[in-house]
């Protein structure tokens, strides 16, 4: 029997209070003031949907081994590359086997659940990781800007150690064009909100949920937690009432602390439900976007064996306020800044080199000397240990999953970065190995010599002239 065997979640560090948006843009559109509750998660300047998907995938690893994974499905409507496998980049960053089947699901907001269904329908022998991630962008001052948040979720699907087994699923597909983006569109376009709600949300979502309940011969009150992503807080409650769900059985929509994370959101909410679920609970999750997918799970005893069931809270708690709307615009590429001539210098990237050095650049895989046991990055022929110096005695050694300690650091005001000052330092990895890295998702004031750190996959540069998003790893304070 197939089901979910592990999960991971990723919410970016920055949170933008909706009140901050209203302060900046309320003059233009006073109507959004009514939505200005809570805050939204905002991807850092060095993140995109791909890096967040990798972070969510990494978060699964304490509960599943990377060698167990046969396939990686990525779902997003904001993939950085249209051509060049985003899932292949993610599989590399996750250091999955080259023998991994990768696929991408995109085009609408239900593609996260569609990827999950596809994984659940794969053969029993196959373990699939499904990562859904989005960084959708609303125009300044609009409703979508208030409602969307950035984030990612990952679930591993298999038939061994199932924590939530699939009972059944039910899908519908409509060309209901509530949101749309052409290839060339940076921002979400949408139709009138009243029509989206009344003609779409309140018709399509009940059709999918009721369709699944009928297929399973169940009533809504048989379900311990109903999970569905809302267009707004008010609509979320209204939907529960119209479906006859008791308030305590409705999964919190996470709009106030996060925002709607697009394709990831049904899975983010599903994970939130799993973190609090008891064995035997039935959880129904439904997505909405060009139709709907509804899936019904039953939680098993295995869930009590997970190493961590505190992942949502960990991600909600690790945050820093983005207290400046102009900075938000800048991070989102909506502000033409004077970056100076130093900032305008963009060195060319060699893709043949990136391919050759994929172990280092993509996977943060270095080497461990078979003679003296010293881990080292990057891998080279001659051992770095001056007492050893063995030649050609290296085996691969992964650093991306290692924690470390901050050996030294600085905050550089001269280097060009989208978020000055640029933080970087030297990291001593636990278990051996030392290297220097950029540091992200924190402020200088919080850094101390010797503090624990972990590694995070980031977009190091976006070379728009040559069409290359360049990725590598950075250090960040230990988040857990």
């Amino acid at each position: 029997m197939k089901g979910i065997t592990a999960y991971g979640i990723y919410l970016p560090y920055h949170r933008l209070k909706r009140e901050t948006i209203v302060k900046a843009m309320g003059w233009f559109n006073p109507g959004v003031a009514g939505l200005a509750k809570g805050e939204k998660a905002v991807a850092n300047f060095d993140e995109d949907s791909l890096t967040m998907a990798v972070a969510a995938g990494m978060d699964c690893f304490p509960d599943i081994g990377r060698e167990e994974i046969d396939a990686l499905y990525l779902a997003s409507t904001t993939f950085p590359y249209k051509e060049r496998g985003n899932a292949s980049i993610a599989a590399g960053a996750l250091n999955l086997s080259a023998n991994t089947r990768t696929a991408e699901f995109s085009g609408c907001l239900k593609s996260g659940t569609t990827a999950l269904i596809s994984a659940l329908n794969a053969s029993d022998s196959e373990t699939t990781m499904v990562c859904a991630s989005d960084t959708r962008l609303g125009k300044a001052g609009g409703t979508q800007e208030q409602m969307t948040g950035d984030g990612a979720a990952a679930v591993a699907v298999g038939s061994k150690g199932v924590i939530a087994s699939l009972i059944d699923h039910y899908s519908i597909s409509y060309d209901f064009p509530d949101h749309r983006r052409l290839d060339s569109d940076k921002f979400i376009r949408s139709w009138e909100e009243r029509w989206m709600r009344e003609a779409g949300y309140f018709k399509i979502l009940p059709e999918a949920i009721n369709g699944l309940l009928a297929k399973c011969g169940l009533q809504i009150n048989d379900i311990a937690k109903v999970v569905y992503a809302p267009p707004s807080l008010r609509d979320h409650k209204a939907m529960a009432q119209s479906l006859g769900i008791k308030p305590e059985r409705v999964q919190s929509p996470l709009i106030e602390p996060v925002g709607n994370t697009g394709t990831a959101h049904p899975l983010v909410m599903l994970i939130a439900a799993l973190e609090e679920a008891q064995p035997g609970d039935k959880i129904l999750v439904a997505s909405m976007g060009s139709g709907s997918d509804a899936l019904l799970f039953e939680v098993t005893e295995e869930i009590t064996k997970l190493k961590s069931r505190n992942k949502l809270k960990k991600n909600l708690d690790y945050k820093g306020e983005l207290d400046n709307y102009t900075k938000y615009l800048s991070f989102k590429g909506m502000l033409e800044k004077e970056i100076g001539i130093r900032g305008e210098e963009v060195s060319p990237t060699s893709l043949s080199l990136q391919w050759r050095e994929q172990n280092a650049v993509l996977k943060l895989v270095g080497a461990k000397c078979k003679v003296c046991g010293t881990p080292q990055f990057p891998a080279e022929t001659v051992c770095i240990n001056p007492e050893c110096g063995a030649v050609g005695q290296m085996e691969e050694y992964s650093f991306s999953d290692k924690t470390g300690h901050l050996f030294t650091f600085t905050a550089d005001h001269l280097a060009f970065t989208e978020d000055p000052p640029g933080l970087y330092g030297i990291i001593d990895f636990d278990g051996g190995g030392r290297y220097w890295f950029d540091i992200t998702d924190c402020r200088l004031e919080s850094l101390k010599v010797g503090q624990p750190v972990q590694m995070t996959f980031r977009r190091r540069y976006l070379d728009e002239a040559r069409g290359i998003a360049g990725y590598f790893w950075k250090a960040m304070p230990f988040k857990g």
Partner: protein
Amino acid sequence: MAEGIKNKVAIIGMGCTRFGELWDRSAESLASEAFEEAIADAGIEKKDIDAAWFSSCFDEVNVGKSAIPLAGALKLPFIPITRVENFCASGTEAIRAASYAVASGACDVALALGVEKLKDIGYGGLPDFSQLRGIYNRQIYPNVTAPGQFAMLATRYFDRYGLSPEEGKRTLAKISSKSHANGALTPKAHLRRKVDVETIMNAPMIAWPLGLFDCCGVTEGSAAAIIVRAEDAGKFRKDPVYAKALQIAVSPEEEYRYQQWDGTHVETTYRCGVNAYKEAGVKNPREEINMMEVHDCFSITELVTYEDLQISPRGKAKEDVDAGFYDLDGKIPCQSDGGLKSFGHPIGASGIRMAYEVYKQLQGKCGERQIRDPHLGLTHNLGGFPANCVIGVTIWGNEL
């Protein structure tokens, strides 16, 4: 056991241009000026030069690659010339190569000349570093600049010796203030003004904890040296300056890749200093060295160099700074010409500029900044970062 270079070669002439942001000077005119001063000082003519070594670093924004630009600028007539580049230690490399050439007997009179133009890039600081270590490191190095790399040394040093940022920065400020005071006395220096400690402490941050006055200027200029065998030197002048040690050491990069280096010193400086003292026969540097020109690209570099060169004990440089040990009237004056901090740092010329100051001090020609009766002077030239660098240490004396 190699004999070493001690007392085998001598400098018989040197030249150095005014350093600065020389918007209206070309590399060619700077090289020519330094060269003309050097041959006039040596009392020779261009035709007497047998071979030359040319140091420059940022070739993309300077003269380009190869030794052709030097031959072209000076119109040297079809002699062997080699361009050397070893980051900021390039100038010391040129002197070392020229010295080895005359010492071997391959030629009799050799020229070492360095020049750097850095201000034609359109922004402050050194040119973009992202490709400096090649296209592979560009993918995996952090977004570093020189101040940031040296700032990490300060972070670690302050932490190790329990200095608060305020205490640490005050010690560094005293070093910079001292160099500015010396630079104010030096006609050819780039930044000729005194700066007090409080101004330095309150300057804008460049790379925490280093502020604006913890950093040397980005400077243009040229310097040159004429080198012959020691036994020939007396034929050219009465007061030649003799080589006692010419050492280069290069880091195998274990500092930032292996958990051994303590991050509070420059290991390569220490190693190079040990070799230089051995070559020169210096047993107790604190007592025997009379002056130093060290690579004070940043104030913290000068602080740790005092310790790495075994002048100050580990962790105790602050005490020597506070006591004025390195001041112009101290036991071992350091940066009597203002150093990189105040005289300036045209990369490819700096190692030769350091030798220029030692040469002039040993000849007693430094006017109001003249050190009293020096016999042994040391230069320390650093290319790269604390954790992976090229170090040149040279020692010169005015007696055989």
